[in-house]
């Protein structure tokens, strides 16, 4: 019993991280981030490839996306091309990914320490996340949630396809972050699961501090409440969206790096993991961080228990978990009018 719960909480903590990222992105950009799962896979498999001494294809993808993003920036700003503006766009979209690519290809095969591999994986995925928003979502940021959602599905398809190209159909595992283990009573905590707990808690606190105390955090919240209003007081909403995607991709990649030593990840595993984060986020109403975290632990526990008692129907149970929640939400649905376009 207890070990099931422990297993559930470890998984749940990962779902909580993903759920938080989903809530964050939705609140700021209204994008329901289906490709979150791909950030997980990219992070995990990039890390695994680097550890195995291979050159991950994601670094090249980042460069390619950076070039597209640069072109879009140039096109969007074609009326007022200052040198400073072009320079900044060039630095972010071209120099950054190229430096990352150079660094990756220099380090790949030299077996750098685990921390370096993690940092590099995070950098690569963060760049991809940033460019993804710039390319796919920024041009349609003003449209309805539905259009954004379908675009999001498109990104998921494309990124999953790239995942197969880069990492092949075989699953991979990565080296653990910490090998230490701790035994408390009947339970044995591996260093990995402790790292999962610590990082999840650290992220929840960091997000809370970021949104509560920093100027950027407040700008993001303002964008979430009212895009037009935020623009009128001088917040660049496109920047808010980019920050949100940057954070989400980093969180996704960290989740991936945390689980890849525990379970074998395939190029398409991320989708399912991301969806479980979704269920948590939906239970949290896509607005509440603490509720999402609690719900994620619940989802993880339900999964652990059902995989033990009814392993055949594990996914069925986890995904139908959402139905009672939806019923409750629909009973409590407020009668407010949504202005749709």
């Amino acid at each position: 019993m207890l070990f099931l719960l422990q297993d559930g909480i470890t998984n749940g903590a990962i779902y909580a991280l993903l759920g938080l990222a989903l809530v964050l992105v939705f609140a700021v950009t209204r994008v329901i981030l289906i490709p979150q799962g791909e950030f997980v896979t990219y992070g995990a498999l990039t890390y695994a490839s680097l550890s195995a001494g291979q050159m991950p294809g994601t670094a090249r993808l980042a460069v390619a996306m950076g070039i597209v993003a640069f072109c879009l920036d140039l096109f969007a700003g074609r009326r007022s091309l200052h040198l400073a503006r072009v320079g900044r766009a060039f630095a972010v979209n071209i120099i950054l990914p190229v430096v990352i690519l150079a660094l990756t290809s220099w380090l790949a095969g030299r077996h750098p320490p685990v921390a370096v591999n993690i940092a590099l994986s995070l950098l690569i995925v963060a760049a991809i996340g940033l460019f993804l928003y710039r390319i796919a979502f920024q041009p349609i940021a003003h449209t309805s949630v539905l259009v954004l959602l379908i675009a999001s599905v498109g990104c998921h398809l494309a990124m999953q396809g790239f995942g197969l190209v880069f990492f092949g159909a075989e699953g991979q595992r990565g080296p653990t972050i910490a090998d230490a283990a701790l035994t408390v009573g009947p339970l044995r905590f591996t260093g990995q699961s402790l790292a999962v707990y610590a990082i999840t808690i650290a992220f929840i606190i960091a997000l809370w501090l970021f949104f509560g105390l920093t100027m950027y955090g407040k700008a993001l919240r303002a964008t979430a409440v009212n895009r037009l209003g935020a623009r009128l007081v001088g917040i660049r909403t496109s920047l808010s969206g980019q920050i949100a995607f940057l954070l989400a991709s980093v969180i996704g990649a960290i989740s991936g790096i945390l689980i890849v030593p525990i379970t074998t990840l395939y190029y398409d595993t991320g989708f399912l993991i991301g969806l479980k984060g979704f269920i948590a986020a939906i239970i949290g109403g896509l607005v509440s961080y603490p509720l999402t975290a609690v719900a994620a632990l619940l989802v993880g526990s339900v999964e652990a228990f059902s995989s033990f008692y009814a392993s055949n129907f594990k996914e069925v149970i986890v995904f139908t978990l959402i139905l009672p929640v939806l019923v409750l939400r629909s009973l409590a649905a407020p009668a407010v009018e949504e202005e749709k376009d």
Partner: protein
Amino acid sequence: MQRLPIIVFALVMAAIPFIPGMPPFWIVLLDNIGLSALVAMGLVLLTGVGGLTSFGQAAFCGFGAYTTAVLTTAYGLSPWLTLPASLLVSGVAAVLLGLVTVRLSGHYLPLGTIAWGLGLFYLFSKLEFLGRNDGISAIPPLSIGSFKMIDPGTIYFAIWIAVLLSALLTMNLLDSRTGRAIRALRRGHIAAEAFGVQTPRAKLLVFIYAAVLAGLSGWLYAHFQRAANPTPFGAQAGIEYLFVAVVGGAGYVWGGVLGAAIVVILKEILQSYLPYVFGGQGQLETIVFGILLVLLLQLAPTGVWPWLMARLPLKLNRKRPDTSLVLPARPKPPTSVNVLLQIDNARKQFGGVVAVNDVSFDVQAREIVALIGPNGAGKSTTFNLITGVLRPTGGSISILGNKFNHARPQQVAKLGVSRTFQHVKLVPDMTVLENVAIGAHLRGRAGALSSMFRLDRADEARLLAEAARQIERVGLADQIDALAGSLSLGQQRIVEIARALCVDPMLLLLDEPAAGLRHMEKQQLASLLRQLRDGGMSVLLVEHDMGFVMDLADRIVVLDFGTKIAEGTPEAIKTNPEVIKAYLGAAA
């Protein structure tokens, strides 16, 4: 509706298999296009028209396919007997899932559909009697007598007859009383409900309709492939169906068919040629697919069909409604009833803010009452309390002697109270006539089924006649076929008045009707309202144009910060010190 192009299309489709030298492979493609088009058509109605996004339609195909698979293989039933069973099972599944999901707002719905779509996929692949991951094979082919539809060229006819019939029924449905209610859903529920549309029921209806079409596609698929396994009913397929609908044009029935053609053919091309271009690494088509989807949304978010139609020299010839037909008028209240509307200590609090503070007033028969007050005085909130959009925190509202604590908007409309909105709530891509006809919703009887089979024409003609008459009455006869979204804001307000008049109301609530009108138009509006009053109607209006109000109103109620501060004739109000203070400040 244009009959000729449809007949030509049907003839062309019927002739295709007889073209000599037609590669059988193309027929298979056309079969797949037809199967996909059926599901997409349901999505057009659900997503494009009704505004409900579903990623789970593939699961309903699964219900259709597995139902016939089990019944024909395990119980040896004839495929034709399993058709109603397949449709019924998908329909019942839709009722159960729909009751849970359609009431959800906005983005919860698509997310919910992804979740149960996946859940059902895993269920299909784990259940013993559905053959788990292997599915069920050796499903008998469709047959007529001893003629078996085994090869793709024969089941082709079954598939495309189904597509054409479904398209006709769907278009009939959209062009009817129920169809207008469905088309109004996407713009939010408040306006539709104010005219008696039961929005949850309308949403459930489209949900079931789309599921039944998907079930039909699944049934055909099972007898086409002669096997059913979980893969084509998973989340990926559900996403693809939505893609089909969006590519073709999510708001158009034929967009679904066009989208299916584009996607199926594109997929075929990508699958066969991409490996040559990029080497043999698999799944490249999903990359191209995904990128194309994002590109399409950025460049042409409404899809290919409307783009194509705008370039074809096809002209819609709309039939003018025959205005000689009449709807039965509402029985007038007995002359003994003098008070149409009685508001008793109505109160509305939003958290700590008291928007309406124990306000009482009444509206008598044949009277124009104006509700005035500075911005934020609680005028529109009072309107929303009367029409049941908001639930009062306290007090009661009586309409024609029926006392309510919280009436539902549909009940209020039924009693003969209709309204316009401060922020115009028309469906911009419907014509003025269609928008106004929504007002007559409660005066029609025809349901979804009779509309689909065109048994509603008499009822429909009377509704449209009434709508046309009201449009003429407010002076917009020239714009009757224009899209509501193309009118100026002032004209849109007038359209809203025509829509409200279609209810045949006893009490008309107008929220800032004169805003955005020119001087002449205001005078025309005033004389129309006087004429209505003299015809026996009462009017309660919120308005900021004091000249307009003072000229028109029999009585004025003044609100300030949610509280009633004065009531009386225009002359009395003009000189009331409280009112002057509220409008001009204490110093004046």
